[in-house]
């Protein structure tokens, strides 16, 4: 199979959908003439023209709201946030408008749109550029939240997100855009809300999503060397969450470690932990463990980055602890 970059997979999803449906447009800072801050939309201005690939001023609240209004009136906008850190100045339009409109109007105005861009830390970018808001958006009914971990999923999930008739938050990573992976030439879709068992195993379940899946998989490889068999699940979507897949896995392995780039309080791992104690309490042979980021903003120095983020070592240690080894 051919191998392409994560950013190319996203671009293919966008371009394929835009070729099919003239109501889809892409809007954001530097998406057109600059070819995208991270080159996701490279070449798209040439193909689709300025009407459909729209450069905006630096005004996230304004253009997010304009896109929601366009969605109310029949278009299917894709809004790129240069990072989700900047989405905070637009969050009123995401939470109070996009997520509420369908119910508030008694089912008259659905909002078929995507807000997408990179989430999380990406090296020494310091506190304001190193935040993960997956759990914030996942908390809000009316939204769907997708966090792909590899090029294949990115393409199939973005196509589903664009075709979805509800607002979808689609969260990527600066550190993944260059990742390469197998992506077939032929069209495929991946449904929103279905987790992927990346690796079958019997001793312990490791759940993660997005960029941190790499840490989870690396830890599983490391543990395999010590004959510890990990089942690794990629949630792929954090609203809705595919609880059934996680519960079934824990009923088999009896142990769970959740790995996530997020502050610990009210994180996705907290939610998974609740659902597991509720639905698989009698199957658990050890308390559920979570590896999150430090409960601090991320400072600049390299020592902080290492301390802050989930790492293979931290996951290996937690897995051994739930196995009492």
């Amino acid at each position, binding site marked *: 199979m051919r191998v392409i970059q994560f950013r190319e997979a996203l671009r293919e999803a966008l371009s394929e959908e835009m070729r099919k449906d003239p109501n889809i*447009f892409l809007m954001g800072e530097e998406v057109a003439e600059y070819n995208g801050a991270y080159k996701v939309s490279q070449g798209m201005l040439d193909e689709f023209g300025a*009407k459909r690939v729209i450069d*905006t*001023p630096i*005004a996230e*609240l*304004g*253009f*997010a*709201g*304009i*896109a*929601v*209004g*366009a*969605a*109310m*009136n*029949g*278009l299917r906008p894709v809004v790129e946030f240069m990072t989700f850190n900047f989405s905070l100045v637009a969050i*009123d*339009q995401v939470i*109070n*408008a996009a997520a509420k*409109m*369908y*119910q*508030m*109007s*008694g*089912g*008259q*105005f*659905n909002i*078929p749109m995507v807000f997408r861009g990179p989430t999380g830390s990406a090296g020494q970018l310091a506190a304001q550029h190193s935040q993960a808001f997956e759990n914030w958006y996942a908390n809000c*009914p*009316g939204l*769907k939240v997708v966090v792909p971990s590899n090029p294949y999923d990115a393409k199939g999930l973005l196509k589903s997100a664009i075709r*979805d*008739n*509800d607002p979808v938050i689609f969260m990527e990573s600066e550190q993944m855009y260059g990742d390469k992976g197998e992506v077939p030439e032929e069209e495929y879709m991946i449904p929103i*809300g279905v987790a992927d068992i990346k690796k079958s195993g019997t001793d312990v379940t490791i759940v993660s999503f997005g960029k941190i899946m790499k840490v989870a998989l690396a830890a599983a490889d490391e543990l395999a060397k010590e004959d510890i068999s990990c089942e690794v699940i990629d949630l792929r979507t954090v609203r*809705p969450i595919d609880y059934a897949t996680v519960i079934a896995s824990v009923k088999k392995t009896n142990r769970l470690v959740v790995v996530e780039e997020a502050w610990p309080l009210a994180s996705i791992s907290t939610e998974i932990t609740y659902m597991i104690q*509720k639905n698989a309490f009698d199957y658990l042979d050890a308390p559920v463990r979570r590896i999150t980021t430090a409960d601090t903003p991320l400072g600049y120095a390299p020592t902080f980055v290492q301390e802050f983020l989930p790492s293979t070592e931290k996951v290996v240690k937690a897995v051994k602890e739930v196995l009492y080894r």
Partner: protein
Amino acid sequence: MAQNKFTKENYLNWYKQMLLMRRFEEKSAQLYGQQKIKGFCHLYIGQEAVVAGTMSALRKDDRIITAYRDHAHALACGISANAVMAELFGKATGCSKGKGGSMHMFSKAHNFFGGHGIVGGQIPLGAGIAMADQYRGGDQVTVCYMGDGAVRQGALHETFNMAMLWKLPVIFVCENNGYAMGTSVERTTNVMDIHKIGEAYEMPNAAVDGMQPETVHEAIAAAAERARKGDGPTFLEIRTYRYRGHSMSDPAKYRTKEEVEAYKKKDPLEIVKQTILDKKYANEKWLDEVEAEIENEVNESVTFAENSPYPEAQALFEDVYSEPNYPFITE
């Protein structure tokens, strides 16, 4: 004088429309007192000429969006008194199926894009609605209303900039009733002429007397023509006054009785009525008939709302997602 441009029909329609708004809301206030209507309830009484003068200048397929003081806008768009009253009661037959209430009237069929509850939040939405029409090559115009409080929000400035940059077919209407809840305009700004905010973006702008439908109609008609020609947005500061408090719970102690009484002397309903009589467009008998007709329409809407069912509790889970089988977390 402008009045010569308007026909008998204009005046009779304005009168009927404004009387319906007025009587409907007087009844709403009464029902709020009886706790039949709950939640927040913001009355439009005094400001009727703004909506009446707008609607007569627009086409049926033009779009309307406003903030939470939205009952009159909904009625003027053609949503029935029954559907608006039922929404105030929270009934399943309301124009938003009982899910929106006073602040969130909607009707896609009437091109009414809703009442919105976050001050200024509707401003970018209005520009976006207009953008979609421009994108499709349509010649509809969007009128986006806001209060004098909303112009202080950053959303307005971001939207004005892009609306001008892209020449969006939108008319921004600031219904300046002098008070953002309890805070008078002069306590919020150094720029007393709100319409001048448009200057920063080179957006055509004007102050308009909002106590008579004629002046409003003229300003809106000119702005709509400009928008349809592709010349972009306009910002109109329409000066008006609300006789009641900000919401039903507001005793409006921040302004004097004399100020309120002075505005009531300029009451748009009374002035239009006087014009109708002066010009002999209709007689007292016609006015009485209209009064009775509207009283009947309003009373009927109350009966309709009273007799309508509340939405089933389980309907809480409907219309959150358009996907029919969304897996809500239930425990």
